[in-house]
């Protein structure tokens, strides 16, 4: 630790630790006291618990490699170059991440036709589609702040573009790449919705096994064994990721400077191709949704759009889709706030030495907890007086935050870790108070990455369906829950209204992410002038 570190830095782990203790460890402990039996431990050793693992690991590994390979060039294009619609492109890439899995599955179906065989390949494609955003956002946040001077020097000294990238750029991006890759791996390995909808025997995950064990077979010892197996495997991945990024070259982060697209030549063609490809990948399924929302009785119609306020107005079933929108936006704001405070403070812990650093690692663990397990634990822990939180709206955004916090840590921690902390010592030696010196060194980076994470947290909350669906609740459901309910009954109106809500969800996400990105740009420019 630098001698000049502000004292509060050593406290920063308290908030995330208390949050995780209360909303993660405690519900799981309550659940464990109900279901922990010798039977469960015996099942942990049994082959039925583990037989899905090898294929699930393979599936997640392939999904991860492809998401990184496709995500990196897109991150390069949208975070380092200035072009018309750059902001839109960057926001659009985030959209697939927020689409409820049932919508992703349906739009894939209507794009590809039902002749496409379900199974391994389709699941991998869907995982890549959904997770490109994770790579683009996490790596892009880092990449945007590199001015490219060192690469330019390397090129001047005769290095090829590839070797300049490999020896100069890549090492500084490594923490962000590893960080995003481990998140994508964990998402694909613990995937539920896509696996249920598009998969077959070769794509089962422990999470889908847990769902079957809890809610079809009521086999709680078996589910406990699967959940423990999943937690163990995910922890191994996350710890490996953390160890792989421990030694990282540090360099001066600068306020962002985007290059204009290079003039005619191979470089320009490649960049343009990447940009067009990124648009195509994201827009195709969304366009299919828009079309569905505009088709009624075989012709073009606005019926679903104009009728959206009155769907099921007089029954308790669905409630107004418009009130679901209000619910979702409110939850997204609360989720972003909670996730940024908790995740940001957890990430700051990487700047400290020793035990406190463990917190930033622990904050990623929720990604590995089965949502069925956590949902049931939360139900047991918080649905009886006096800690009865069902009547309040708090449980759902908290459940969303548990998923968003790890992403915030994944964005913020690598950026802080590779920031040159010597500025802090310099500032302190010039007489700045510790907190001031800290902010001088890390403030500009923090502002940028915190806003990027806020956008990601909003997106998580808007699209989340899994964990929240297990929670007992009253009041208006969120938009994804609403969409799923509409899609669970026949009739043109159900499908059309679900398509309208999905399009609104996409537009909402775009709006929020664009606004957050713009805010980020403004603060960056502010920092540049300072």
């Amino acid at each position, binding site marked *: 630790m630098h001698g000049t570190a502000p004292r509060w830095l*050593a*406290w920063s*782990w308290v908030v995330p*630790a*208390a949050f995780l*203790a*209360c909303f993660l460890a405690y519900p799981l402990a309550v*659940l464990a006291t109900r279901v922990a039996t010798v039977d469960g431990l015996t099942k942990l050793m049994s082959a039925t618990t583990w037989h899905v693992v090898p294929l699930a690991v393979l599936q997640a590994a392939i999904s991860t490699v492809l998401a990184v390979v496709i995500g990196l060039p897109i991150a390069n294009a949208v975070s380092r170059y200035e072009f018309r619609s750059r902001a839109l492109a960057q926001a659009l890439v985030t959209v697939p991440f927020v689409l409820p899995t*049932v919508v992703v599955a*349906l739009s894939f*179906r*209507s794009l590809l036709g*039902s002749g496409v065989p379900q199974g391994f390949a389709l699941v991998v494609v869907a995982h890549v589609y959904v997770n490109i955003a994770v790579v683009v956002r996490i790596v892009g946040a880092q990449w945007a702040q590199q001015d490219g001077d060192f690469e330019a020097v390397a090129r001047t000294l005769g290095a090829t573009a590839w070797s300049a990238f490999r020896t100069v750029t890549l090492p500084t991006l490594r923490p962000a790449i590893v960080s995003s890759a481990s998140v994508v791996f964990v998402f694909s390995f613990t995937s539920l919705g896509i*696996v*249920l909808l598009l*998969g*077959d*025997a070769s794509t089962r995950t422990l999470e889908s096994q847990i769902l079957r064990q*809890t*809610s*079809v*077979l*009521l086999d*709680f010892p078996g589910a406990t064994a699967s959940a423990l197996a999943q937690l163990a495997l995910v922890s191994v991945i996350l710890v490996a990721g953390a160890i792989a990024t421990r030694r990282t070259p540090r360099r001066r982060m600068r306020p962002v400077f985007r290059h204009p697209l290079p003039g005619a030549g191979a470089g320009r063609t490649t960049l343009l191709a990447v940009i067009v490809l990124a648009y195509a990948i994201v827009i195709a399924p969304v366009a299919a949704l828009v079309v*569905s929302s505009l088709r009624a*009785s075989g012709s073009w*119609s606005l*019926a679903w759009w104009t009728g959206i306020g009155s769907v099921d107005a*007089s029954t*308790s079933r*669905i409630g107004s889709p418009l009130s679901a929108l209000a619910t979702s936006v409110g939850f997204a704001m609360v989720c972003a706030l909670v996730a940024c405070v908790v995740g940001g403070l957890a990430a700051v812990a990487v700047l400290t030495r020793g035990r*406190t650093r463990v917190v930033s690692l622990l904050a990623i663990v929720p990604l590995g907890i089965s949502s*069925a397990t956590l949902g*049931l634990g939360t*139900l*047991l*822990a*918080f*649905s*009886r*007086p*006096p*800690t009865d939180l*069902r009547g309040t709206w708090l449980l759902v955004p908290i459940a969303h935050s548990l998923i968003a916090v790890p992403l915030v840590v994944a964005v913020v921690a690598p950026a802080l870790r590779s920031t040159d902390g010597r500025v802090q010592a310099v500032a302190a030696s010039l007489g700045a108070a510790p907190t001031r010196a800290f902010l001088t060194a890390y403030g500009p980076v923090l502002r940028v990455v915190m806003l990027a994470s806020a956008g990601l947290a909003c997106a998580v909350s808007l699209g989340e369906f899994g964990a929240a*669906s*297990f*929670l*007992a*609740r*009253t009041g208006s459901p969120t938009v994804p829950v609403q969409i799923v309910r509409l*899609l*669970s009954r*026949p*009739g*043109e*109106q*159900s*499908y*059309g209204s679900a*398509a309208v809500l999905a399009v609104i969800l996409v537009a909402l996400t775009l709006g929020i992410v664009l606004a957050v990105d713009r805010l980020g740009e403004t603060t960056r420019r502010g920092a540049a002038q300072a």
Partner: protein
Amino acid sequence: MRRPIPAIAAIASLIVISACSTASTANPTASPSVSVAPRGSVTLLTHDAFALSDAVLADFTKQTGLTLKVITAGDAGQMVAGAVLAAGSPSADVIFGVDNTLVDKALAAGVFEPYESSQSGSLIGPLKQDPNVSKVTPIDYGDVCVNVDDGWYAEKGLAVPSTLDDLIKPEYRDQLVVEDPGTSSPGLAFLLATINRYGDGWQDYWQALADNGVKVSGSWTDAYEGTFTRGGGQGDRPLVVSYATSPPAEIVYATDPKPEQPSTSVMTDGCYRQVEYAGVLAGAANPEGARKVVDWLLSDTVQADVPLSMFVFPARDNVTLPDVFTKFAGKVDAPAQLDPATVNDGLSQWLSDWGTVMQR
């Protein structure tokens, strides 16, 4: 130098944790007299598909003076899983929506305080003989059946299949989509229908279905909306496992002007009957109110509202059905139903055997 701060912080977080835990472990076996639930309210735990008209819900308060608080907890399976784990110290007073594949497990786990509804005499014949009726109360039922796109067959000049045996004939190759019984409730019901029909030979029947090109989807939504020719997407399979009430639902949720006829019909052979029960939760804070809810659910008012709200049939006899039901819902004379205890014993093995046959 050892800083004191981490120690203080550790203590602080311990306090937070213990505050959490003492708060909710206090009074785990709260007796009704010390419960904090307001005297005038009763809490109903149910699944996401629960629905009644607003006017009918308001009627409960008018009749009993009690406020009805409705809490949803995921799909039926998720709801029962939560209720089983909380058996004896529940988070609500009364539960609705436990179906006949799970009711035995819930009863065995002590979820219910036995209560026979004062209205149970009004149940339809088969449900009156339900052995569980002295403990839990059937509220509605529905049949899971193969649904048919009639237009598709008319266009092809092909006869519509009418029995389970037809489905494995070569002329119906590559036409059926079913749901995975491990992840979908109608999928499970269809598997049980085939086990009921073919007994020990059910795996051979499924092998024949697989050889005849049956497609398996993970959920009803994916099967009906995505793969069935009459769903919202561009599906290409004219046969789907769905409900006997899907054709009326298609009319109710159609665009205006409503079509005269649904585009689909029901194959009434090989249907499986699902019954939904309500019951008083053991350890309820307001058991008296809970019993009133059970009776109310079986009252004429609610039973008449059930068809168009949830697309199921009322369990009460002599309830007037809406026109769209009498005209278009599949009329199933002999639905399959396995003994709940048999299902309870066999389910895990059946799912595993099904997975082996279907390579899923």
